């Protein structure tokens, strides 16, 4: 009888232990997934100066648009913390979509091979950013479910597992996604 109780206690203990380790692992995954979004966003930052220069070559007088994009890019590159970063990135996406819209009005620019390549790289990056964000949101949903389910709910508050937040689309981005950068041939 005593052995049976001991056995049950051991199994329960192992179950709680694996739940705790699982919560730790899932929390790490959300952190890593967020950093992965960061990797793609930085690649977008690196792409922008080249893009701006190419468009300037054909539409030099659209100074306002260039300034807006450059300012937004610098702001996004220097933003600290997930909330500030998400806000700055959405502003940048809005500015970029304006830049592309302006470039669409110059047929010579549209035919330029360099510009086309940059545009397709940008489109590819936007896809990768979207994929990274979906992955991040899935990781967050999983972590939150484990936190609130049983037996995670027993451990969460005591061991400081706070709920994570989804990567939300803000106004500027929502508009930009609806008019995603198009690749023309």
């Amino acid at each position, binding site marked *: 009888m005593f052995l049976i109780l001991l056995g049950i206690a051991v199994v329960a203990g192992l179950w709680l232990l694996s739940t705790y380790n*699982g919560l730790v692992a899932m929390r790490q995954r959300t952190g890593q997934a967020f950093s992965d979004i960061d990797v793609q966003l930085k690649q977008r930052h690196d792409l922008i100066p080249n893009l701006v220069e190419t468009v300037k070559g054909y539409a030099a007088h659209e100074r306002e648009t260039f300034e807006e994009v450059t300012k937004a890019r610098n702001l996004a590159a220097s933003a600290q913390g997930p909330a500030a970063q998400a806000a700055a990135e959405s502003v940048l996406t809005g500015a970029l979509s304006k830049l592309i819209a302006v470039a669409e009005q110059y047929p010579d620019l549209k035919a330029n091979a360099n510009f086309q390549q940059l545009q397709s790289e940008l489109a590819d990056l936007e896809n990768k950013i979207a994929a990274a964000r979906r992955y991040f949101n899935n990781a967050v949903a999983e972590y939150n479910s484990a936190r609130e*389910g049983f037996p995670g709910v027993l451990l969460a508050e005591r061991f400081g597992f706070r709920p994570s937040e989804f990567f939300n689309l803000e106004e500027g981005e929502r508009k930009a996604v609806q008019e995603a950068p198009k690749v023309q041939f």
Partner: protein
Amino acid sequence: MFKAYGLYSHIQANRLRSVLLLASFVALLFALMFSFALIFEALQAARPLDAIVGSAIFDVKQGWPIAIGGAALWFCIAFLFHQAMIDFATGSASVSRKEAPRLYNLLENLCISRGVPVPALKIIDDGAMNAFASGLRESNYSVSVTRGLLDHLTDAEVEAVLGHELTHIRNRDTQLMVIATIFAGIFAFAADLTFRNWNFPYGFSPRAQSSRDDRERGGGGAALAILIALAIIAISFGVSVLIRFALSRSREYLADAGSVELTKNPDAMISALRKIAANPTIPDMPSRMHAFFIESPGVTSETGWLATHPSIEDRIAALVEFAGGGDFTTPSLPQGPEGGELPPPQSGPWG
């Protein structure tokens, strides 16, 4: 087995399932030992049933280290022979970075992102769409892809397939399936031997020397004991086959999940699976190799408990439920030379 909320818990659940399946193999091995001991004891002096069972249990308690040692030896020998057999069966030619830069770069990017050495890349000259991973040692790892797959799948989809195969290699599924095959082989051998009345080659045939008088006195237990032992042997053979296929299916779910972990793109995996499902058949591929492909290359479809892969619908449902995939696209079938029809599979059963 335990509740899966997303990718991580889905992977953990399948890992747990694999461990339990392997443990079942070991338990079955003990059942087999017990049944041999039963037969051995039953063929000794005539006794009632519980005495035979008692002696058999005692034998197992004494003799299990030797039996496990024998099984381990069998394993080592069989394992060493498997690599040669696998290479011979699949016949693919190795390809260099220059010959297939697009493919090589896709594979290399995936490997770098995980810090995994790049396996050898091979292309199978076949119109069917399929891929497989093989190799039992790090120097031997390889990923093979058919010509048809490269022609009909987009870059993102090929990347998803490569991610799937790479995950098989990282999870050491190739070694695991060989171990499962060897395990199943032990039970098949035991069943075969027993039901052929222990006729070993070269006329070696262990039989008890009990007299008829012994058997008629108080010893009806022997026949029953032997019957029980035969039932155990037959059942463990059947169960070992089921375990082997269940293990293969579990590893396929893990590989799909691992591919999404690598590429972060569940939609590409889903559309790749849909395309592959249209034409995965590679004729003349021996059935022991089927488990290593991304979808079974068998000419006849495998279903239910004897399937090496979960059905495409099940795999896509798992990806949608746990990996956040969306099954948006209607499958666009690859266009054959006639324009609109798939090319017919290579050679039917009649030529």
